[in-house]
């Protein structure tokens, strides 16, 4: 195992994050605050409690997930796409590193950034609403797994993308709708039966449900199913990445 290479990639990627720390930090804080003002205070005050939780607090897990998923994908996809775009990938390909080390470096850094943003949003939330975390360990575990699995997905998108437009395409057309329709702002049980059934095909539902369970102790789907879903998703991403490096798809001619 070339640990030194993993560290080099990780440090290099984190340096990019710290160069733009103000943007990385400000934008999620600002957008979260806006969500709390609009949904929590303005509209939320007219919405009754959901499963015994005030609406402002109810949306906290979903908001964290929304940002964490978006950040994990965009950081990881950009991290590997940029070297491809400017040509510095030659160095990765000619270095004594295995695909595992490349993935560990890039995905590790992207997941760290996403985790950082997630924690910031949680802290911001404390300023606006009363949030209690019933299962802190489970909360941390869900957060870590989400950061990791969506950073893996982002890595795949970054390898696949042939242009900056394509880099934005999947997050915009697939991930954002899935997250919004995944119960970030509502409970699945509030939907008409047909839409409830459809929602169960949305993988993000299981994530948000599990994450919300860690906060409030109630969930749309059983916690075990949620855990199973995210583990399966992580495994699927790993399989795809393994295949990419085995075949050299889109990176090695």
């Amino acid at each position, binding site marked *: 195992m070339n640990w030194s*290479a993993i560290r080099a990639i990780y*440090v290099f990627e984190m*340096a990019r994050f710290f160069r733009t720390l103000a943007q990385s930090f400000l934008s999620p804080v600002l957008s979260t605050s806006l969500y709390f003002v609009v949904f929590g205070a303005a509209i939320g005050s007219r919405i009754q409690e959901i499963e015994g939780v005030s609406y402002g607090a109810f949306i906290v897990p979903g908001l964290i997930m929304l940002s964490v998923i978006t950040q994990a994908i965009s950081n990881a996809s950009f991290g590997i796409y940029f070297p491809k775009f*400017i040509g510095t990938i*030659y160095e990765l*390909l000619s270095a*004594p590193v295995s695909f595992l080390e490349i993935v560990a470096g890039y995905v590790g850094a992207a997941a760290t950034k996403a985790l950082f943003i997630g924690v910031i949003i949680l802290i911001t939330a404390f300023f606006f609403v009363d949030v209690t975390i019933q299962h802190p360990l489970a909360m941390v575990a869900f957060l870590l797994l989400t950061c990791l699995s969506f950073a893996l997905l982002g890595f795949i998108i970054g390898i696949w993308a042939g242009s900056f437009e394509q880099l934005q395409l999947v997050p915009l057309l697939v991930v954002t709708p899935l997250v919004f329709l995944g119960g970030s702002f509502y409970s699945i049980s509030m939907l008409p039966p047909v839409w409830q059934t459809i929602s169960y095909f949305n993988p993000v539902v299981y994530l948000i449900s599990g994450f919300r369970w860690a906060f409030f102790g109630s969930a749309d789907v059983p916690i075990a199913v949620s855990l199973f879903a995210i583990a399966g998703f992580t495994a699927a991403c790993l399989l795809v990445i393994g295949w990419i490096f085995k075949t050299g798809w889109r990176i090695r001619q």
Partner: protein
Amino acid sequence: MTPILDVRQLRKSYADGFEALKGVDLQIEQGEILALLGPNGAGKTTLISTVCGITRATSGQVIVGGHDILTEFRAARTMIGLVPQEINLEPFEKVINTVQFSRGLFGKPRDDATIERILRQLSLWDKKDNQIRALSGGMKRRVLIAKALSHEPRLLFLDEPTAGVDVELRKDMWEIVEGLKADGVTIVLTTHYIEEAEAIADRVGVIAKGELLLIEEKASLMARMGQKQLDVQLSEPLEAVPDALARYNLTLCDNGCTLTYAYDTRAERTGITKLLRDVSETGLVLRDVVTRQSSLEDIFVGLVQDETGDAA
């Protein structure tokens, strides 16, 4: 001694069917400098990219320092440094960070003294905290070289390292190459500048259309293939070549003061002895006799034209 680089029957076809390498065999000894010459699209970069692991060979085998580049890629690649042809650098990164990154990527522990030595050697030390985008083209090229040297490779590939750089950097480059050679580093460089190959290479390989046309000691190549010219400078100018010397195909130049005779060192008889005897028999008074050898460039152009012409 086992060669540090052993390439056997290396073939590379791209997805569109283009055959970039058609069974290249190449052995390079430790510590030598090999210059690969060839026109654009000859396969120079494909050859280097395949050895370095950037492209995959269709068939054939490459062994670096006794390690197969596929089955023992870690051991093989640790030995290799690559300076690519294109200037590929992260624009917002600092010089020192990108060089440290390269060293780490190749599995070497952090070593500030070595990095400083390399940066100083390349006149980059003053710029170490600059962002790469703020550097000139020549400086960026130096950063690429620093990255390749950062992990102390034993086999260094320089893919047209001096294309489009100023004279100063080219001289620096040659000095660095000399220094590396003294340390026992093996160097393979591709170049368009034949004077570069002439100046620093021990051996010269000529590649065209995916085939290695020849690989030979530079000195013996020039001796074997060189066209030579004999200039007979006369004290008194001539109006025309004397009839007695007609069969030598001489040309009269320099206002009739020089008779020029072209001959091939490869020929069994160069005809010089007879020519000089006949010249003295005509009673001409000689001021000087000079021989000149054609440059590597002339040899190269002749070779590529011959071979590609035959193949067509």
